[in-house]
Structure formats: structure tokens, C-alpha cells
């Protein structure tokens, strides 16, 4: 476990010394700010009853932000180690493969949670002028964190397959977009298959959280998909040794 924190800490320091952290942070704040303002604005001026919630922000984040954010945050984590050869030092140090992967995962989640913390500003603004439901907000945040962790695990797996960051980003973006459209695409197949395909979709399980419902089956979905992708990443590092 100690090694996991060590590796995570190293990644976090390196990340914040690179311009990447600030570029990504800037775009993240800009986009969430835009989504927030638009949702409040349309609620006030539109025909709908104005509501003090981050419902729209969470939904738009899941579709328009996380699918690119996760690939960008994870692409260098394992690809770069392979490219410059430091993976050889990591894997010959007295550190287990899963500790390396968990360290990288913890680092990527730290970046994500750091970004998410910035959105607490919007909560503050809502509470200043309105009366948001803390339960719904909490379940929304839980949902987006679970959603994000799944996306990070997918990004990490992509990063373990290649020494090229761009390839890694494109692959994880592809997987995420595919999983995002499974819910919509499921209508095309019909019957039992439709339900199965929809259940596999990453967005299918998100709606409940936004509405303030924490369904254990949704939590299990995100946790198990995260687990599977992290497991595959560890196995992929292991097979790297056997090649």
C-alpha cells in the first residue's frame, strides 16, 4: 500500500509541474462554468420551474467532459513509463504490479477529484440564492465520482497497451464513446438483447444518481467495471514480462 501512495504522489507532483495540469484545469473550469450558467439561465427564463440543482451539469459532464478528460488524464501514466523505459525500473523494484497500477489509478482520481472540487463553487452559488437539496447533490457527486473512476480505469488500461500517449488517448476515447452510446444504440436491437446492451452502457446507470436515487445495482456496475479494467491493466503489465 505504501508503494501505491509513493507512486501516486510522484505522479501528482509531476502532473502539477507540467503545463498539462493547467491547460486541462482551464478547459474543465470553462466548460463546467458554461454548463452551469446555461442551466441556471434557462431555468430562470424558460417555461420550466426554476430549480436549484446541478442536475444538468452532472449529465452534461458525463457526456461532454469525462469522455475526453479521462483519456487526457490517464494517457501518459503508463505509456510514458514504457516509452522512456522507466517501467523497467518500476517493475524491477521490490514493488508488486498491482501496487504500480493502483498508484497510477489513485493519481488519476486525485486529478479528477481536484477538478471536481472546483465545482463546489457552483454549489455555494446555488445555496446563496436558492435552496438546493443536499441529498440530491450528494448522490450526484457520488455518481459522477463513480462514473469518473470507471472512465479512469478504462484510460489506464489503454495506457498500459502502448508507449504512445496519443494512441492511448484515442483508444480510451473510443471505448468511452462506445459505452456512452450503448444506451441509445440499444433501441436499435430490440427484445431482450436491447435490455442487455443498455445495461452495459455507461450512461444507463447514471440517471438515477442525478435524480437523487442511489441504487446499489448502479453502484455495483461502476465499481465492477472499474475493478475489471484495473485487473486487466495489472494482467497486461504482467504479460509484458512474459513477452
Amino acid at each position, binding site marked *: 500500500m505504501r*508503494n501505491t501512495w*509513493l*507512486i501516486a504522489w*510522484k505522479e501528482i*507532483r*509531476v502532473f502539477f*509541474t*507540467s503545463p498539462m495540469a493547467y491547460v486541462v484545469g482551464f478547459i474543465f473550469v470553462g466548460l463546467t462554468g458554461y454548463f452551469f450558467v446555461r442551466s441556471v439561465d434557462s431555468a430562470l427564463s424558460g417555461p420550466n420551474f426554476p430549480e436549484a440543482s446541478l442536475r444538468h451539469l452532472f449529465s452534461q459532464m458525463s457526456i461532454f467532459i469525462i469522455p475526453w478528460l479521462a483519456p487526457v488524464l490517464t494517457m501518459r501514466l503508463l505509456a510514458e513509463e514504457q516509452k*522512456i*523505459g*522507466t*517501467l*523497467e*525500473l*518500476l*517493475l*524491477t*523494484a*521490490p*514493488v*508488486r504490479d498491482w501496487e504500480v497500477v493502483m498508484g497510477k489509478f489513485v493519481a488519476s482520481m486525485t486529478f479528477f477529484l481536484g477538478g471536481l472540487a472546483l465545482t463546489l463553487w457552483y454549489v455555494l452559488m446555488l445555496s446563496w440564492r436558492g435552496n438546493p437539496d443536499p441529498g440530491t447533490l450528494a448522490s450526484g457527486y457520488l455518481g459522477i465520482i463513480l462514473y469518473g473512476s470507471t472512465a479512469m480505469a478504462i484510460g489506464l488500461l489503454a495506457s498500459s497497451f502502448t508507449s504512445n500517449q496519443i494512441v492511448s488517448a484515442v483508444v480510451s476515447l473510443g471505448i468511452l464513446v462506445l459505452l456512452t452510446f450503448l444506451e441509445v444504440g440499444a433501441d436499435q436491437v430490440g427484445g431482450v438483447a436491447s435490455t442487455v446492451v443498455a445495461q452495459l452502457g455507461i450512461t444507463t446507470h447514471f440517471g438515477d444518481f442525478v435524480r437523487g436515487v442511489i441504487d446499489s445495482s448502479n453502484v455495483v456496475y461502476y465499481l465492477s467495471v472499474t475493478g475489471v479494467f484495473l485487473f486487466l491493466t495489472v494482467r497486461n503489465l504482467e504479460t509484458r*514480462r*512474459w*513477452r
Partner: protein
Amino acid sequence: MAIRAMIEARNLTKYYGSFLAVEKVNFVIKKGEILGFLGPNGAGKTTTMRILTGFIPPTSGEALVAGYDLVGQSIEARAHIGYLPETVPLYTEMTVKEYLSFMGRLRGMKSGQVRERLGYVIEACRLEDYYDTFIGKLSKGFRQRVGIAQAIIHEPDVLILDEPTVGIDPIQVVETRQLIKDLAGGHTVILSTHILPEVSMLCDRVLIIHEGKIVAEDTPDDLGTKLAGVDRVEAEVEGPRSQILEVLKKIRGIIDVTSRPAGKNRNVYRIQAKQGLDLRPTISRTIVNNNWALLNIQLLSMSLEEIFLKLTTEEDLRT
């Protein structure tokens, strides 16, 4: 566990797919020894080292470091190893100090231990002026030093250095060699190289590897005399060159004579006899009987280069 052998390879074999990279390699390295691992590119040096560091497992056979099996007790074994891969992998966006601390901690040191040890390592590798410099800004030679520093930060029993002097300038090569020499004693060192003088300078023992197999194993000096035998003689003679050449070539058992000038009317003749034939008495008598002056005659031991070529090109000198 009475371990006298720090590193032990037993029948190490490694296939990459159907390509046989290392075949039944056996050797034992005692504590404190510096072993040179010599071979042309692609001979299997890096593969063997990667097996010894636990980076890749052998297809068959076993490797032990400090008594721990590298497959079964990999973590324990790895804790005893300091490794510098051929590519000198470094995190360029970290400073020297950050990087060395990270590597030390990664290998199980506490932060207090790292702090105590850092001073020694920085001094030993002469990195004092670059403590807070980003590694990306360092020249190749300094990066090499950082690479060695990270390998010794945790005081490992075993030091595995893959081609540590490749790609740096000659002065840095000399410094790096001196550093390795200074480190010997406390550590058991395996050093791979394809530079022959390096081996005779640094190593107690040499393993020559070729096409995945060990073809010779000895001390650098013994390897020279053992393989050279008595069939090569160098003689310095004062007298007419062409005549001497003609006479020498007529002696039974001599295969080849070459000469090079060594002053006024003097030449050095290099004589190759049939294998195992010591022709010094015959040669000296012949020269004296012809009233030429024999200034010097000696057996020629093979240089490492020649041994290396002989062993790896399978050139038949027996004729």
C-alpha cells in the same frame, strides 16, 4: 542460509517466441566480485540481466540473487538489487534529488534513511552541483551518473549495470569506470559491455557470451594466455628484412610471418606457428646462425579483442 554466492544462474534458458535468446547459461558470482559480461550486440547480455533483475522470467532454469529465487521470491530478491538498464531510464521532469529520493523510497527505504544516504551517493557520483537541477536539463554523462546513483541509493548487495559506459564522452567514461571500481568491494557487480579494455580494467572475471551461450569464463589475464598458447611469437631482429622473412618462412611448422619496421635496419617479426608448437628455440638458432642480431623474442599473448573475435567468429586458426 550460508550464502557465498550472491548471484547464481542455473541452466537459464529464454525463448522469445521461437527465438532462442539465452541457452542453458550457468554461472556463480561470489560476494564482492566484479564480473564482466562480454559479448557482441544481440548475444543475450541484456536478456540475461533482465532475468537476473526479475524483469522477465526465464523460460526454464532458475536465477537466484542473495539466495532468493527470482520467480518464486521475486520481491525479496529484487530488494537486494540495484539496476541500471542500458537505456538509463530517468524521469526528466524531476530534479536529481526528487528522483533519487523516489527511487530509494520505492526500494523500501524510509525517508530518514534516504536523507542520510543521499549525501554519500551525490558525492560518490559527483552530482553536488546538480542536486536541484531537472534531469531533463542534464547532459548525457550526468544522466549516466544519476542512473548509477539510483542503482546504489539503497545500498544493494548486487549491482547490475547494463553497458554503463556506452554513449558518453571519453572523460566521462574514465570517471564512470573509476566510480564502478570504487563501488566494488561493498557490492557484487555484474557489468555488461562490448568494450574489451573495460573488462580487463574493471573485472575480476569475464564471461563471454555468444549467441546465447557462454563460450568462455576466466580471469581477463588467464583468458589471454590460455587461449593464445605458445604458437605466436614476436621477434625483433637486426638484419635484411626480405632475407630474414624468406628464411623464417622456410622453418617447418611456421604458417605465417609478418613484419613491421622498428628502427634502422631493425624489424619486428610476428610469427604464427602451427597450434601448440613452441618454435622459439628453432627461430633464435636460425637467426643467430645467419649472423643476424636477435634483439628480443617473446610469446605473444592474445589481446581480449583477439580472443573475443576468435571465440565469436569461430575462425579456425589451426589450418
